[in-house]
């Protein structure tokens, strides 16, 4: 058996070349961004030698572009770097909070939201936040690049939509309109450094009168993958995001959840809590949106 190898491509084409060469020779490739999941997995349950393809040295995976129409976040940008970007934080406070919840200061210095997404844990904190914000995965591959909505990217526990010789370049978002706000909340029994028992991400837009014109709600850690919950969004749209609408959205999330029972929570508990988190996150997103009405962010 051949040993481990390390490749450090500096262009998209070079990275695809490495992935294709491995595929052709039947050798396993492993995409590597911050490594905070990959290295741990490589030392515990999955020790098979492979080529580690470090995608951190490609311009596209390191880029953060904030335009009037579109925001692009490179797949390998560390969470700490994202959270130091004041403009990004003003546009997507919920998304950046979800990234900031993951791990310690040390982990934040390496871990990326692209990696969190590709790792495809049911409890990945950034995933419901990205889905709520309408994130689109930009995937590079031998045939050029393609785009997949984030809610379709994670296909199962530990599985994603990347095909042979493909890798995630980054995430694309529509630049939020004025009157928009997002939020992500999770429940953990500790105050820090834990894995979500349940999580909820909400993004919504209000008109000048405070009525909700658009919303997306996503829940995490209560199903094999994070789920988009259109019924919860429908409960918010057209309302003032008042107590009745919040309760209806929360109930929709509880109904959409299909959690497992484990040491961190029972099925009934997770169902209840995800509804509570949806209500609270929706209220935070609403208040953020109210602060943004009329102003450019």
């Amino acid at each position, binding site marked *: 058996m051949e040993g481990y190898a390390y490749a450090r491509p500096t262009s998209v084409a070079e990275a695809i070349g490495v992935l294709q060469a491995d595929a052709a020779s039947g050798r396993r490739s492993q995409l590597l961004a911050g490594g905070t999941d990959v290295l741990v997995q490589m030392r515990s349950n999955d020790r098979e030698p492979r080529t*580690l393809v470090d995608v951190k040295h490609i311009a596209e995976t390191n880029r953060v572009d904030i335009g009037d129409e579109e925001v692009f976040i490179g797949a390998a940008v560390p969470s700490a770097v994202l959270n130091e970007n004041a403009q990004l934080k003003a546009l997507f406070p919920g998304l950046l909070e979800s990234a900031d919840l993951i791990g310690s200061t040390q982990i934040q*210095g*390496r871990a990326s939201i692209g990696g969190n997404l590709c790792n495809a844990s049911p409890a990945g904190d950034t995933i419901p936040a990205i889905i709520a914000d309408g994130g689109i995965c930009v995937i590079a591959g031998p045939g050029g690049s393609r785009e997949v909505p984030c809610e379709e990217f994670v296909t199962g526990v530990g599985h994603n939509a990347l095909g042979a010789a493909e890798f995630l370049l980054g995430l694309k978002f529509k630049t939020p309109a004025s009157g928009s706000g997002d939020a992500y909340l999770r429940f953990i029994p500790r105050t820090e450094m834990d894995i979500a028992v349940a999580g909820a991400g909400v993004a919504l837009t209000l008109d000048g009168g405070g009525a909700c014109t658009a919303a997306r709600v996503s829940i995490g850690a209560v199903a094999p993958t994070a789920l988009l919950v259109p019924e919860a969004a429908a409960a918010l749209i057209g309302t003032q995001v008042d107590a009745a609408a919040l309760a209806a959205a929360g109930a929709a999330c509880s109904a959409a959840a299909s959690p497992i029972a484990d040491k961190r929570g029972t099925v009934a508990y997770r169902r209840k809590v995800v509804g509570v988190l949806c209500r609270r996150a929706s209220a935070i997103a609403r208040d953020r949106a109210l602060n943004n009405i009329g102003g450019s962010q």
Partner: protein
Amino acid sequence: MSRVHVTLSVNGEPREMLCEAHQSLLDALRDELGMTGTKEGCATGDCGACSVLADGRLVCSCLMLGVEAEGMDITTIEGIAQGSELHVVQRKFLEAAALQCGICTPGFIVAAKALLDQNPNPDETTIRYWLAGNLCRCTGYDKIVRAVQDAAQELAYEA
């Protein structure tokens, strides 16, 4: 198995090392460069004993590969003191008895220095959150937090 030649800077000194592709930066520092100040606690990124700075950013060296350090500036615990003069964080750890067995101490000192470098006047909550990724099974943390507060206070007087 072929080894990879890595050129990097460690505590301001140019260094070279031969790493296996999957060897952690922690193991490379300890086994290839003989710098054993950086400790292994968990090797899964949970305990922070292996904390180093990579291009100025606090990371767990167990969650980086040695080969990823190519071209980087790495600061380890060995680079915190100036010659025989301890850094104020090191001095305050001694004065406040903020260590017992000492395995976690290099990581705490590297992490605390990184905090004070970017935020010279952190409140207690900030210190506790910043150091949440450093685990200590002896002190109960209060002495560590006080040592960092004392260090910040002394730095403020000097400024």
